């Protein structure tokens, strides 16, 4: 009986190698892509909207910037701390991080780093600098990257901008 055990184990390994098993469970997330040209064009100042999936928060003078994960940045006017006012939303696909220096807002636009400047009345925003492909494509919340099937299914210049629950 003792001799049978290693042989049985060996047979099991051979069987597993021949038949094959999916070792990893399927991911609960699927990628959403944008063509680079669309992604760059889609950085816009928009109407304020409610905070749904907040990320990082940055305070600069009387403004609070709250990241809406993978979607953009809420701009909150905190001139009156008793009554902060949600004044705008900057659409930035794939954005999960923000920083501000010298009145320039830096954010990640999926794989790009962009620098934004608002006008005085917060009615317009301009991308003053874009450094392309400095970040890796975002991985899913459960930690996976793109499978080869996903890579081959999308156009060559498509970029992952977020992951959505299936």
């Amino acid at each position, binding site marked *: 009986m003792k001799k049978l055990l290693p042989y049985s184990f060996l047979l099991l390994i051979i069987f597993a190698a021949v038949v094959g098993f999916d070792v990893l469970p399927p991911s609960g997330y699927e990628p959403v*892509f944008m063509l680079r040209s669309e992604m760059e064009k889609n950085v816009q100042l928009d109407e304020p909207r409610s905070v749904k999936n907040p990320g990082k928060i940055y305070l600069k003078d009387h403004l609070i910037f709250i990241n809406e994960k993978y979607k953009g940045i809420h701009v909150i006017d905190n001139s009156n701390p008793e009554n902060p006012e949600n004044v705008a939303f900057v659409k930035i696909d794939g954005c999960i991080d923000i920083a501000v220096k010298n009145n320039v807002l830096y954010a990640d636009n999926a794989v790009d780093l962009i620098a934004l400047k608002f006008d005085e009345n917060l009615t317009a925003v301009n991308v003053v600098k874009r450094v392309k492909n400095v970040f890796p494509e975002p991985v899913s919340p459960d930690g996976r990257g793109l499978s080869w099937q996903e890579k081959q299914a999308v156009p060559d210049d498509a970029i992952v901008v977020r992951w959505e629950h299936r």
Partner: protein
Amino acid sequence: MKNILVLFLFFPLLISAQNITEEKTKQLTFGVGVVPQYAILNGMRIDFDYKLNDKNQWLVVAPQVYLSSDPNFTWDYNSMTGFGIELQHKVFLNKEFKTVNPYFAYGPTFNYFSVQDDGLTARSYNEDGGNYIGLVEDEMTTRIFKFGGNIILGLHYFLFDNLYMDAYVGTGIRFSYDNQTSGLHGYYNDWWADLGYSGTLMVGGIRFGVMF
């Protein structure tokens, strides 16, 4: 058991040795054969052999067809059709046929496959003013074009008068392209028997046929 193994391993040599005394010349100019192992790959291959000259050099034209309507143990696609052709310049080392005839052959090969399989396809949609691309599962058709060439060494046995068996081994190279990706890709290029294999490979097999 040991004797059987030795007999099996040296069977070709035993036959060759026998030939020396049983040399027989055959005036043959045309042959037709089949390669049964192609059935494993859901294919059928028929070899047409045409004698080119008196130096016992032959042209082999080998058309192939492939048809599979179900997944099998080798592949898990939904269905597949294909065709191919291989050309070989076959040079027998003996200018006249004996019972056993060593040869070498080389030539180009081409295959086309149309594979229906479940895959991911890109779907564009508009959301919040932006144009996004999502992936949906769908049956997709992949057209694969495979080019390459083989160099083989073989032994051509005459089993009976005109019936022959041909055992060959050799090496080859393949370059595959498809209409879904640019360049090489993984799904149909996982191992040497895959439809879209690219790389070098060992070829080998057995043919049966008749010569006239």
